[in-house]
């Protein structure tokens, strides 16, 4: 009995230790984002917020447009990044990529799961094979292609190549496979066309898969850094992660509170998704890791 209790206590201590390793840095990030810039590096570190400098947040969000006293300077730019622009850019990219992936992967996934067509197996293996090809390996030709199309340094250039998704197709196919085929026959008997079978029954019933796919796509592109770094060069076209790094580089070590304020803002959408969609996120990441 004693040994078991010992195990349990040791386990808890171990888990709490790692939980602190995860949580303390985040706590420090939040607390320090609310500190006077000059105190941001103060040692010993203060884990909890000491003061509440909401001005740091004001500076991240608006100093590109306004002087401290509220004078509008347009996009004349002080040493800062146009954060609201970047938030909007990131939202636009995430929104269209997510919607696009949900629809097109639903179509393709349904075809692979439920429709017979010549060359289906070969095409499916082709999709599976492309799933293992990392973006980092294909980025040079993608860049060349987009610059030929005149799509570099534009949000369209970020969105368009991200919509066709081998992984999303695979994920949606798995969900369509779970829907009993008797429903298709029932619809046929009820007088449905092939399109109606898809649109009125299979598509709505695959919503759980779409939620998983949407959460993953949104989260991935919200956080994405490599592709925007290569494709985007104008600061008003930046996405949020580019902006954070640019902000860090502007501020150097002078005023990390402001950078951290930016980080906190940038994490909000991801945290909202995390709070409401953790289950889907886990499921999606597991499917993702299982297949490349």
């Amino acid at each position: 009995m004693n040994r078991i209790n010992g195990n349990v206590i040791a386990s808890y201590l171990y888990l709490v230790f790692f939980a602190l390793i995860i949580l303390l840095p985040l706590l420090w990030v939040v607390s320090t984002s609310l500190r006077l810039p000059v105190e941001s590096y103060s040692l010993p570190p203060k884990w909890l917020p000491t003061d509440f400098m909401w001005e740091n947040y004001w500076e991240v969000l608006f100093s590109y447009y306004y002087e401290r006293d509220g004078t509008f300077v347009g996009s004349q730019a002080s040493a800062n990044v146009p954060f609201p622009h970047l938030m909007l850019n990131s939202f636009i990219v995430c929104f269209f990529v997510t919607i696009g992936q949900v629809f097109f992967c639903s179509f393709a996934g349904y075809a692979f799961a439920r429709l017979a067509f010549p060359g289906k197996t070969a095409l499916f293996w082709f999709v599976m094979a492309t799933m293992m090809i990392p973006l980092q390996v294909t980025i040079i030709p993608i860049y060349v292609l987009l610059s030929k199309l005149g799509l570099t340094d534009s949000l369209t250039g970020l969105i368009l190549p991200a919509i066709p998704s081998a992984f999303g197709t695979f994920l949606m196919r798995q969900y369509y496979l779970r829907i009993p085929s008797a429903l298709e026959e029932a619809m046929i008997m009820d007088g449905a066309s092939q399109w109606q079978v898809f649109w009125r029954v299979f598509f709505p019933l695959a919503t759980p898969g779409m939620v998983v796919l949407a959460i993953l796509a949104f989260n991935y592109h919200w956080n994405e850094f490599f592709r925007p770094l290569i494709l985007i060069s104008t600061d008003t076209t930046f996405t949020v992660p580019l902006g954070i790094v640019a902000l860090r580089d502007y501020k150097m070590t002078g005023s990390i509170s402001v950078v951290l304020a930016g980080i906190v803002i940038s994490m909000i959408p991801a945290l909202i998704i995390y709070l409401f969609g953790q289950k889907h996120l886990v499921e999606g990441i597991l499917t993702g890791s299982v297949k490349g």
Partner: protein
Amino acid sequence: MLNIASLKKTKARLALLFVAPTMLGILAFTAGPIAFSFILSLFYWDVLSPMKFAGLSHYNYLLQDDVAVTTLKNTIYFAVMVVILQNIIGFSLAMAVRNVANKYFRYFFRSVFFLPLVMSGATVSVFMAYFFNTDFGIVNYYLELVGIGSVRWLTSTQMVLVTTVLVYAWQHIGITFILFLGGFASIPEEVIVAADIDGLTGWRKIFYIYVPMVSPTIFFSSVIGFIHAVQVFDHPYILTRGGPGDANRTAVMYIYEKAFQDLEFGYGSTLAIILFLIILIATILQFYVQKKWVFYE
């Protein structure tokens, strides 16, 4: 016969319509580019002037390019360290969570370990760089406090890759943790009871029962972790831009620099193809070994 045949035809037509956009997209943005990468690797090209055939000279040059060799070494070294660290931590955390009876606590720990995964590698690296700062960093402050003394986490060539491993592992521990949770859950209860009856306890039980029983998970998480880790870019790039020297320069960073800073698209593609081959080998290994190496079924 005609009625099903015509049904089949409409089905095939709809299918074509449904797969066409995604297939074209994959052709244009994945399959085409990988083929084009290979072709580019046989040419000199700086975008501005016309392409010039290079044969295998890029591949030859790669063997003599110390930076390329260093970045590949760094990448493999990084990935191996990540895999070892993540397996140990993921395994032990999943073991520990099994001892937590309260389901809310379990959910809490799971949520916490999963939290960094939803963040951007870029932003994590930004604030982690503050943490590991040699002079002002919190990590060094506590190390000095306990008498170990300050470590040049990001400024010493010996430490910087380790630091990157730590930051990367911090962010990705949730995946291995979840994989091992699944692995443990699939161990038949009888096996554990039998081990108890045989009097196996503590470390012996872990090494004779748990480790072999989750060996498929260990293998799986290792290959997957490896494949993901060799693609690392955000963390070393943001932490130190690859420095000091080339100590933190990884393969993808070198591809990026060669192609997009030096405009050597041909050589950049050569590096990309090499990285692709490494990932391909790992994937094939996983595909074949996974089928054979299963201890329980």
